[in-house]
């Protein structure tokens, strides 16, 4: 068998035609096409890939990030897309210079599933997603003080001594994040059906007459 030909996905060429110089680089690795996009345009590119005819990347497989050991090398945020109908994959990357605050726009408005994925990237890498509705830690507890553990400058055993880590961990209320109290009344009100909201606004407390 001959080796697989490293041809980029047709979507890469289409992106180049649609966005021009905002597509920085196109690479093929292990048969997967990787498209490097300028940070300012990533939301437009994602929306275009999702909605335009012939692309239809309707499923966001993953949002993640890579921090390389070379401190000069930028941190990369990665979006892995899939078109369920066309059975095609595409990987997008944005390189973030570490000397400025790490921020990219959220794609939560395109795929609701991005909510927790972006929270995970924020938690472990410290990348902020502008426009995210609820950007909090998701794996580490919310009062975690030591920083973002998957960054390469983060020491493997953490910044604090084991005794201090134990003290901070034991100070956490284990029920604080897993209860209904986390859901504020205002949030719950917004999610209620329209007719129930109307009845609550009229001050009605029981069921319909």
């Amino acid at each position, binding site marked *: 068998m001959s080796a697989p030909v490293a041809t980029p996905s047709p979507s890469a060429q289409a992106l180049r035609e649609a966005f021009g110089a905002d597509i920085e680089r196109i690479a093929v690795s292990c048969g997967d096409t990787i498209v490097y996009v300028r940070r300012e345009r990533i939301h437009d590119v994602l929306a275009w890939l999702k909605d335009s005819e012939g692309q239809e990347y309707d499923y966001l497989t993953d949002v993640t990030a890579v921090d390389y050991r070379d401190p000069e090398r930028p941190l990369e945020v990665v979006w892995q897309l899939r078109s369920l109908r066309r059975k095609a994959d595409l990987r997008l990357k944005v390189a973030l210079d570490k000397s400025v605050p790490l921020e990219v726009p959220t794609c939560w408005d395109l795929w609701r599933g991005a909510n927790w994925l972006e929270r995970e990237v924020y938690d472990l890498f410290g990348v902020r997603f502008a426009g995210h509705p609820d950007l909090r830690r998701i794996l*580490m507890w919310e009062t975690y003080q030591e920083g973002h553990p998957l960054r390469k400058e983060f020491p493997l055993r953490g910044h604090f001594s*084991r*005794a*201090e880590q134990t003290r901070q*961990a*034991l100070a956490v209320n284990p029920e604080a994040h897993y209860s209904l109290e986390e859901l504020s009344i205002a949030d719950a009100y917004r999610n209620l059906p329209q007719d129930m909201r109307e009845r609550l606004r009229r001050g009605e407390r029981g069921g319909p007459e």
Partner: protein
Amino acid sequence: MPTTTDATVVSSMSPSWVTTRLDFLANWARTSSLWPMPFGTACCAIEFMATAGSRFDLSRFGMERMSFSPRQADVLICAGRLPFKLAPVIRRIWDQMPQPKWAISMGACASSGGIFDNYSMVQGIDTIIPVDVYVPGCPPRPEGLMYGILLLMKKIRGESFTDDMLRVETLVGPDGLYLPPERIDELSEPFGNSVSQTRST
């Protein structure tokens, strides 16, 4: 003279005979129905389930009744690694268990952090709760866990209610720890392969 001899005999023999018989009775009852509170977080819990299953059959030791409420449990079995995020949880479960209570640390990760010498993992649950029996292994075979349980039973048979320190609750103190901080640092020292781990500062 006979009266003093009798008094000596009564004072030295009689109470200790009574206490040892009472201890024997209480310890017999306790060892024969240890209700485990399984705290299974990882692969050790699979071995724990195998131990509870029909082949190895924990019910031979009166332990078939898993107590998923800490309030009816006698022995906490931490089967698996314990991240710092779960530390307040296991501490609360331990505090909710009534005396008499014991703890078994099952497996390398629960006992020492195991291969997870990193930012997120408790380096041995004895920095969080007092532990009676450590079962080594990664994960321990069911025979290993049963050996640990038998060791715990042996320990319980040796208990005496005249021992004042036996049922003292070690609560989390005002400094937020139940051990002195330097003791926790000492217990969490890297050992084995992680000593040569250089990425830690």
